[in-house]
């Protein structure tokens, strides 16, 4: 029952994210969607993933998005046509959206028809944080270290790309 509640909340929030005109509302609705997904992770016996979903995604990445939206302060898409009509109601999106929806319905119908015996979950979940830590530091230790290098590279790249270039003689 909780699955349907969280699932519906995630879907509705995501639909509203792409339908909102104001990016600040989009970011807030996406945070709501992440909260719903975090609830789903708890239902899937993954409390660690649920907690880091809130800490990393909803707590850090979305703050970054919010900062950029507020700093750039360009809330509306331009041109008069854009001002008058809602983004989802223009001909291009409407046609493309209809095609996508038909494809999705066909795919879901096919998937539901194929599932004769529903795949039930195995009865022994592995949920402890200790198991995640053990696996991360032994089997996947190389990948773990590589992601730290990745984050360093991303940090340096983001700082370099976002700085101002309008001082001709400035040495940085």
């Amino acid at each position, binding site marked *: 029952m909780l699955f349907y509640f969280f699932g519906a909340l995630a879907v509705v929030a995501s639909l509203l994210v792409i339908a909102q005109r104001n990016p600040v509302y989009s970011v*807030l609705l996406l945070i709501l969607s992440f909260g719903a997904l975090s609830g789903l992770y708890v239902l899937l016996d993954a409390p*660690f993933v649920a907690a880091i979903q809130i800490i990393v995604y909803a707590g850090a990445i979305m703050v970054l998005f919010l900062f950029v939206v507020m700093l750039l302060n360009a809330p509306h898409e331009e041109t008069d046509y854009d001002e008058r009509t809602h983004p989802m109601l223009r001909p291009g999106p409407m046609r493309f959206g209809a095609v996508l929806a038909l494809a999705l319905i066909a795919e879901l119908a096919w998937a539901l028809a194929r599932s004769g015996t529903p795949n039930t979950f195995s009865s022994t979940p592995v949920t402890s*944080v200790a198991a995640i830590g053990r696996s991360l530091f032994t089997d996947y230790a190389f990948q773990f270290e590589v992601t730290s290098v990745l984050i360093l590279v991303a940090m340096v790249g983001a700082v370099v790309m976002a700085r101002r270039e309008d001082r001709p003689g400035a040495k940085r």
Partner: protein
Amino acid sequence: MLDFLSTNSFLIAQVGILVVIWIGLQLSAAVMVYAERKVAAYLQQRVGPTRVGYAGLLQPIADVVKLLLKEELRPAAADPFLFYLAPIISATAAFAAFAVVPFGGSTTLLGLLTEPLPLHVADVNVAVLVVFAITSMGVYGIVLAGWSSNSKYSLLGGLRSSAQMISYELSYGMALAAVLVLANSMSLRDIVNAQSGSLFGIPQFRWFLFLQPIGFLIFFTAGIAETNRAPFDFPEAEQELVAGYHTEYSSMSFGLFFLAEYINMVTVSAVATDLYLGGWWLPLVPESWGWLAFLAKISVLLFFYIWMRWSLPRYRYDQLMAFGWKVLLPVSVLNLIVTAAGVLYFGL
């Protein structure tokens, strides 16, 4: 009636704990209002509020009544939904973080209950992460307040304050990680129980404060920066930014921010007590009266908060950020490494 009470006694006790924490937090905010003004006064060699009630004890009530009766203003260009959502988010995050913090051992309420009732709202086995997550959510209240007020002071204050909060969350998390290494569990109740051993022959004294003094200092400093209190309160400093992100708020919206700030202080003190000061363990105090020891320790930490606000000058914003990134974060990483080495080689 008594039949209903006895069969559902556990459920009623749980709801009772919820009510106790809810009211207790609000009472603590009221006590903090009074304590701050009195302590500040005595630190400045004056007496503080004395007129309202005996020795000014009814001053918080007067403050609340004043806030409730003020006119509720909103700038015309402010986004109304976000403007009123921001203090709600701040206050909700402040209260919600207390849901996983245990504040005592088990009690049977002097024999009224059939089985001992553990003194917490929920015992989650990743409680440390949950507290961290909810504290991260509190940033949004401030960011949205700054943005939706549609005024320069608010926006600058909001952005600076949230940048400060997310920077100090890193050191906060690293200090937490060092405690996790010592305690081998993420559940706050287990962490407190790991501090119930004996140190130097004194029972119930193996507090992590003595095993990791630097970790405690890092955690408490990061906690002060997280709650935007002096000396890290540049974003809401009166002299610098009018009032930062809550410039445009009045009456109960401002009251909610005010409440959220005090309750954040109480939560940080409670978590610090659980992590470093041994929670409810005190030598010679039996476990069922441990919650009194917990209250005493929180009061000591809150006194430190007030003392520091009125004794130390304020950090400038760039000094604040430089301190967080260039000093506190490397020291907390070193602390983690040294703690891990200590556990590995000396079996702490």
